[in-house]
């Protein structure tokens, strides 16, 4: 009996340990970058010799990364809006409606998720180049945004679809019975109920676009986003400014992830109160 309980305990520890190790694995490169950003040496060897903020200073003395940051922000903001709107509308059509050609719609709105990003980028690059030849434009930020929307919308769609799936449609019926118009039902019932999912989708969309390398790399032409800037930098050789840049880059993501989670929980709590 005791040995049985001991065995169970052992399995518990093993399983929880597996999860803990996986989280450790996820954070190894991230924590390493943060640690190295405070080094006082020019060579990046571990353990770092001393603590300094030298490389943050260096970064701002030569702020050639700022245009790339601006580009990334523009691309991420616009891609987020389009991906979230298209994905949310698509999710409702995926789950709640039945219509002709639905399976075709499902296939084309989901397949980009199954595409390696590099291939997605290359395929679109070919198309934009042919199109550009005919119409006289070249690839740049606009094509990056289109590429991001194609890549990111399926993610947004899946996230909102989960919310739509758990949706209680009797609330809509009640509103309609009480005399609300179609638009009022949408504004007062449907949209608020889907809001937590839409919020998560928007956060995901912004950060996926902000950190995207593959699609941007194929479609940016001569424009540079932050990941492309870092890639061309580390391709030449590692410099101690990149860990500092990386650490600064983590901050908006951190803020956004926690903010979105806070808002999502608050919305969920309100819903529970409203339905209780």
């Amino acid at each position, binding site marked *: 009996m005791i040995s049985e309980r001991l065995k*169970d305990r052992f*399995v518990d520890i093993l*399983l929880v340990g*597996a*999860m803990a190790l*996986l*989280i450790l*694995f*996820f*954070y*190894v*490169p*991230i924590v*390493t*970058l943060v640690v190295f950003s405070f080094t006082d040496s020019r060579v*990046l*060897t*571990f353990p770092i010799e001393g603590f300094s903020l030298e490389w943050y200073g260096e970064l701002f003395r030569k702020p050639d990364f700022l245009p790339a940051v601006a580009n990334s922000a523009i691309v991420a903001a616009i891609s987020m809006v389009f991906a979230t709107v298209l994905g949310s*509308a*698509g999710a*409702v059509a995926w789950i*709640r*409606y*039945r219509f*002709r050609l639905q399976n075709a*719609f499902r296939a*084309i*709105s989901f397949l980009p998720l*199954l*595409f*390696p990003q*590099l*291939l*997605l980028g*290359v*395929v*679109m*690059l*070919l*198309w934009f180049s042919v199109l550009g030849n005919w119409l006289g434009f070249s690839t740049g930020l606009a094509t990056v945004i289109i*590429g991001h*929307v*194609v890549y990111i*919308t399926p993610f947004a769609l899946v996230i909102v679809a989960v919310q739509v799936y758990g949706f209680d*449609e009797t609330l809509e019926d009640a509103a309609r019975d009480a005399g609300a118009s179609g638009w009022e039902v949408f504004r007062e019932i449907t949209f608020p109920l889907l809001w937590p999912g839409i919020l998560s989708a928007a956060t995901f969309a912004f*950060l996926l676009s*902000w*950190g995207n*390398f593959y699609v941007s790399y194929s479609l940016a032409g001569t424009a540079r986003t932050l*990941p492309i800037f*870092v*890639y061309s930098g*580390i391709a030449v050789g*590692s410099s101690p400014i990149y*860990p500092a840049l*990386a650490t600064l*880059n983590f901050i908006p*993501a951190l803020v956004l*992830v926690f903010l979105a*989670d806070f808002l999502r929980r608050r919305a969920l709590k309100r819903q529970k109160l409203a339905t209780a």
Partner: protein
Amino acid sequence: MRTDSKSWRDPVLVATVAPLAIVMLLFFVIPLVMTAVLSFQTTQFYRLSWTWDLKIWTEVFSKPHYWTIMARTVAMALVCVVICVLIAFPAAYALATRLRAYNAQIQILIIFAFLTDAVLKTFGWILVLDKSGVANWLLAHLGLGPEALNLLFTPTGTMIGMVYGLVVYPLFTIYLSLARIDRDLVLAAYDSGASRLRAFFEVTLPLSRPGLYCGAVLVFVLSLGAFLEPKVLGGGTAPLASELIRQSFETRVNWPLGAALTLVLIVIGALSLALSAAVLLRGSRRAAR
């Protein structure tokens, strides 16, 4: 979940479906068709010339060099799938059965790591795997191996990077299918005298198969396009298909060739998707009987 049948004359349906459908048709489906069309053209003096012939395809099929790299890509993808599933399953199982109380926190931790810039994370791995990096310092201080391990610029380095980037997918798909398993089924197995191990292998594992397959297939198709890892962590010593495609576009400026190689990779991915869908369907049919 109730569903509404809608006709295409309904403006609500058009408003929800049409924008996304048009974007995907214009910038995903047509580009795919265009890629296929381009692979039947040729280049002259680095310029595309619209001549329909099979020159590029005969080149692709007659050069064993391309197929060695394709085979290496598939082999790496398969190894990556096995490692990812082996890592993801126990963790997903723990998340679904042992760590319920901390689910939200753990998910945020994982999502934050997943959404961080891939180039920066890859650069982080350089600092870890480098000869004078974190990994070797740790090994030396744990008294394991006095000699420095050379992980950077090897296929092992590439594999660590690939697993790192993709293990999230099976983690979530497996977790989702484990979380959906009716606890009563497992309890029923215990009641009828099954040991914990037997209940796991005869109830839990078969029921988690959809998530397992979906995760494995996702890892497989996505790892076919790994590019940063073999280049930055593998040091370009053992190039994968993505590098071949990049070269045919950038170095050789041979677009039809790049298009053809891209198609080969897409076909490999599509075949594996179809195969796994067939296996999954047969499995669920057998379970229904």
